[in-house]
């Protein structure tokens, strides 16, 4: 390493102007995208339990086969080295007054992790906001997926905090999931130093 990375600064309260007014991405999956269609509602909550209505959430995820649309992912899936052609894998949305935003996507497949173990299906999540000097990273896993019990990243987390990484299915609306992000408090979300 010869150079020092540029410091991060908060996205501030006016990021909509440059990032989401015309450039938000709610639908990560096209109608042609293969996979199990899901709707994920993310909600951001501050240390006083108040909804954060000026945050931005970005999502990066693999396709239904567990492959990222990226040249550094050289996995050969089902004899194909290319990702689903109807797949990019990126979403970003600003939160609304109630601190929430919704994404339409597909449940990703399992991607390799450390130590030759497959990771459980997950979305990579980054949170930007006024008062957040450097984006926070977390992951959204899927409640009830048996693969969660062998996921090498969940295994790094103390057991009482693991549930903060698990999106919950909506019992009344099949395919709908919710994922709450708490900056602080008893349910403080696990954030990662990537």
């Amino acid at each position, binding site marked *: 390493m010869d150079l020092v990375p540029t*410091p991060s600064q908060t996205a501030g309260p006016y990021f909509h*102007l440059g990032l989401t007014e015309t*450039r938000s991405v709610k639908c990560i999956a096209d109608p042609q995208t293969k996979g199990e269609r899901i709707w994920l509602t993310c909600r951001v909550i501050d*240390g006083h339990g108040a909804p954060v209505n000026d945050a931005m959430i970005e999502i990066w995820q693999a396709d239904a086969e567990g492959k990222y*649309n990226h040249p550094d992912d050289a996995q050969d899936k089902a004899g194909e080295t290319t990702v689903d052609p109807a797949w990019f894998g990126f979403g970003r949305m600003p939160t609304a007054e109630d601190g929430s935003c919704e994404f339409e996507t597909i449940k990703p497949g399992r991607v390799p992790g*450390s130590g030759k173990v497959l990771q459980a299906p997950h979305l990579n999540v980054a949170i930007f906001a006024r008062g957040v000097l450097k984006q926070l990273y977390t992951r959204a896993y899927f409640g009830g997926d048996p693969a969660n019990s062998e996921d090498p990243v969940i295994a*790094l*987390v103390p057991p009482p905090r693991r549930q903060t990484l698990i999106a919950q299915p909506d019992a009344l609306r099949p395919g709908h999931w919710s994922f709450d992000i708490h900056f*602080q408090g008893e349910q403080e979300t696990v954030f990662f130093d*990537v």
Partner: protein
Amino acid sequence: MGGLTNERSIAQYHRMPPGSQPPSLYEPYRSTVRRSPTKPLIVLPHTLSEITGPLYGHEKIGETDNDLTRQHAGEPVGERIVVTGRVLDDNGRPVPNALIEVWQANATGRYRHHSDQHPAPLDLNFTGAGRTLTDENGSYRFVTIKPGAYPWFNHYNAWRPAHIHFSVFGRAFLTRLVTQMYFPGDPLFAFDPVFQSIPDEKARQRLISVFDLETTQPQWALGFRFDIVLRGRDATPFEA
């Protein structure tokens, strides 16, 4: 670390040097108090999930996307400037096809945003948003007007130094950078907790663009250089 089911290994990205990045909690910046994690972050070894990310090489950039002075019928009021620089990784290698998005206040210090209601005029000829891609040398260029300082409510008589917000997508989701570029000699630096939140003085100075006579256009615009460094990775994969 780094071993994969298909026997490939992953070259790990460098971790940030201590002091080069702001902490989550910086009390003088009051909004951090309720919005910063209280528990330590959990260190992740880098897997495909971290080292991949959206790539924008095929993105279509409109003709006026990187010229914020030509997005309306007339020219915006203010000091016309050229902002240019390179995006490099921390090994000094250029990052081509990096998507850079910018947003800023107008010359009076007012954002075209419903939440900014402070009594300074909007400019019908200025939106204050732009984007571009770096070329094969990692270079980018914007034409815009110099934003004004503006007041906020963080503390008594609080004013933000003039700045342009930068959002950068490099090669990986972990190289994602959102930052702010400042202008040399701003008297507000000493009073600004966002700028002062970066512990290392040298790292902080890297957010201040440099006036550049070579970039300056005669009879037309002042030039400023702002280079951006994203995290880079080890040359060789870490074997499992």
